[in-house]
């Protein structure tokens, strides 16, 4: 399963994407979002996301730049046990690739896929208080804030609900 956009290839998560993911979780940007993780913790999260795909039949895609194949981040459907609703999530990993519209481009393709191909009736994105960059992207995608959700770890996050018709 693979999706393509003008600048991106959305491909299954693979071991070759792990170093960029580990670098992201070691970055000040991840620390500011409360996501800082040691390389082995990042590896563990990555294994869990790959296993999510095997258990659920879907998982976030890795984003690769069509121009040179570099790993840019991830975007895709995510619904681990204990999470209230089916989510579309996104991260851009390298600092240098933030602010270029890659997450918007990927999320539009993914929303079209989850609604148009996977048959989801609704989708949310959980966004931390203070993560205004992601909140702005959710709004730009047509999502509206629909209350909050407290994770099993006790963290309150904002729920942004995507509209079926907006991007299909």
């Amino acid at each position, binding site marked *: 399963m693979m999706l393509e956009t003008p600048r991106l290839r959305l491909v299954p998560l693979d071991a070759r994407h792990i170093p960029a993911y580990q670098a992201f979780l070691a970055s000040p940007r991840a620390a500011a979002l409360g996501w800082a993780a040691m390389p*082995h913790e990042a590896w563990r999260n990555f*294994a869990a996301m790959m*296993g999510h*795909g*095997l*258990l659920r039949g879907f998982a976030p895609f890795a984003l690769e730049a069509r121009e040179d194949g570099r790993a840019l981040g991830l975007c895709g459907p995510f619904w*681990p*046990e*204990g999470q209230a609703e089916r989510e579309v999530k996104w991260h851009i990993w390298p600092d240098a690739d933030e602010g270029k519209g890659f997450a918007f481009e990927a999320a539009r393709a993914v929303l079209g896929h989850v609604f148009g191909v996977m048959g989801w009736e609704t989708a949310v994105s959980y966004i931390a208080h203070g993560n205004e960059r992601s909140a702005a992207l959710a709004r730009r995608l047509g999502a509206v804030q629909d209350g909050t959700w407290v994770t099993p770890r006790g963290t309150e996050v904002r729920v942004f609900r995507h509209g079926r018709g907006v991007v299909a």
Partner: protein
Amino acid sequence: MTPPVLHSQRLTLGPASSAHAEAFIAFCATEDSRFIGGPADRRDAWEGVAISAGLWALRGFGPFWLSAGGVPVGRAGVYYPDWRAEPELAWTIYPAYQGRGYATEAALVARDWAYATLGLGPLVSLIDTGNAPSIRVAQKLGAVLEGPHEPNGGHPVMRWRHPAGVAA
């Protein structure tokens, strides 16, 4: 990759399923899971199942999930996440199914598969000194005590080394 399906005399060794996930989640909710880092809540236990599936995708091997007559009874196989120095032969049988030789039966099949198919071995098993049933399994498998390992949350842990060749 996903696990092959192997058979021992009484057990099927295969990939994770939702029935296996539910049985593991129930096990992790109890104090009986202390030797594998439990108790753990539903979310973390499911993530453990996802990681086990992700290990197969990343390493090409991992834990098999065990069924007896179609009923989940535990898991056994080679556990080798990124942060471990070497692959471990590990087994867990849920309390209701202990005392029947299932762990020995499954670990033997998993070990011989790992030796023959992956070229691994001699494998190690890391066993809490308080886990008498598991120590008996290691002894039945012909493993020898090699020395102390890093403690697991304050519990002393010993390193057991399995025989190099396939047992007669």
